[in-house]
């Protein structure tokens, strides 16, 4: 199916936005370390002092 000029422009804009979005995600993830995240989750689950503080 042929696209009209404005449709091609719209498609290009969508593809560009998608590419930028993907770039944002890649930028966002830089630096965070899955092993550290696992350590944080484990620490919270195993050594919580929350209720002791709460009382």
């Amino acid at each position: 199916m042929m696209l009209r000029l404005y449709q091609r422009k719209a498609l290009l804009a969508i593809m560009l936005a998608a590419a930028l979005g993907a770039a944002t995600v890649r930028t966002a993830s830089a630096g965070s370390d899955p092993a550290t995240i696992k350590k944080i989750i484990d620490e919270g689950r195993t050594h919580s002092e929350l209720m002791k503080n709460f009382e």
Partner: protein
Amino acid sequence: MTDVIGPRLTGSNKFKRAAEWTAKRMRDYGLQNVHLESWPFGRGWQRGIAYGRMTVPYEMQLDFRSYAWTPGTRGKVAGKVVVLDASAEDDLEKYKGKLAGAFVIPWEPPKAEPDFNPQPARMSDKEFKEDETSVPITLMRTSDPEAAKRSMARLRLLPKLMKFAKEEGALALITDSVRRDGLLNASSYALGRDPKAPESIATVTMAHEHYGTLYRLAHGGAEVRLEMEVTNYFEDGDGNAANVVGEIPGGEKPEETVILGAHLDSWDLGTGATDNGAGSMAVLEAARILRQAYTASGTKPRRTIRFILFGGEEQGLLGSMAYVKTHQEEMAKVSGVFVLDTGTGRVRGLGTEGNKTVIPIFNEILAPLRGIGVYYVNGRTQVGTDHLSFKFRGVPAFAFFQDAIDYMSRTHHTQADTLDKILPDDLEQASIVMAVTAYSVAELDQVLPRKSST
């Protein structure tokens, strides 16, 4: 904090104890630059007793509590009940000269809506996904917009009504708690906190069931007489309240910050466990977890992670507004603010306050937390808590969406807000979510994109 120190009404001695105690815990956990940031508030206040009963047409003990920052009755007082029909200031004129020595009931009680929803409640998938523009129904007290409008109009009229009743020589003003099953509601103005303000009138919130009984009897023409004694105390100190601040300094970009926050202050009918001891303790626990993780790995966060426990939230986000004002030059370098303030329930997701640019970022950050129940990121907005003070200054600021449990239906601002309502597993999950979020945002290449850049 909740059982030993107790409720933490802003500016009260108990609030100050809680602020000092949480600062100590931050130091115990190895946070740095721990300090209290004072801001002007006004007088502290401590409730005393509130006792009363109907004596005519029959004897019945009445359940009520004072509005905070209102005076007592100066001993036991007795008098008749006068019912008004006041929905606007103009309505008061016709009661001139008729309220001396009377207990004033200002308006017809709203009809108690039957509760067909089982409580406590967890957020359904449908509820979170259905309408991204609204507050989830489990976080609302009424779904009737007319009732909400009427309630707001009455709240606006209340200060004028108190002034009028005082000038007319009434004994006390009695309002309906508008909660079910004997629950009392502390939500009120803090009109008396200004030491220069003229003394107000004893004002109480009464159990809906008792208020309705008095209203129906007196409105129907019966003579209704009451006895009441209320003793409250003002605590005149330095007039300041405080925010508690501590941080884990960043290694690479220490001037840029990620803020985890909650309000430390509470109303004082219960002990402020779910509102917002829960958020405060989750922030403290997130601080402990992160300090432990960085110490164990010998690393620092890329940006500074700051932990703030605000005062004055219940009186209108006063502490967070004071913080934003004091630190306004730093706001451009605040990457994100994350607040927890809807009770004990586990975190289910994050609303991005209409900032669509951050949705893919948060989807990635929260992905490792799916295993502990965090599923949703959407554009939804959260109302009525401290992230708004930052959001209004253009800072990306968010409040986590939690399972409501029985927050709006029972504990919010009521005497039922006590430690036994806390679900440890849920709140520990919330602490972990806060810690992981702060860690991941602190490690981003850039600060979070501002909403205006979308």
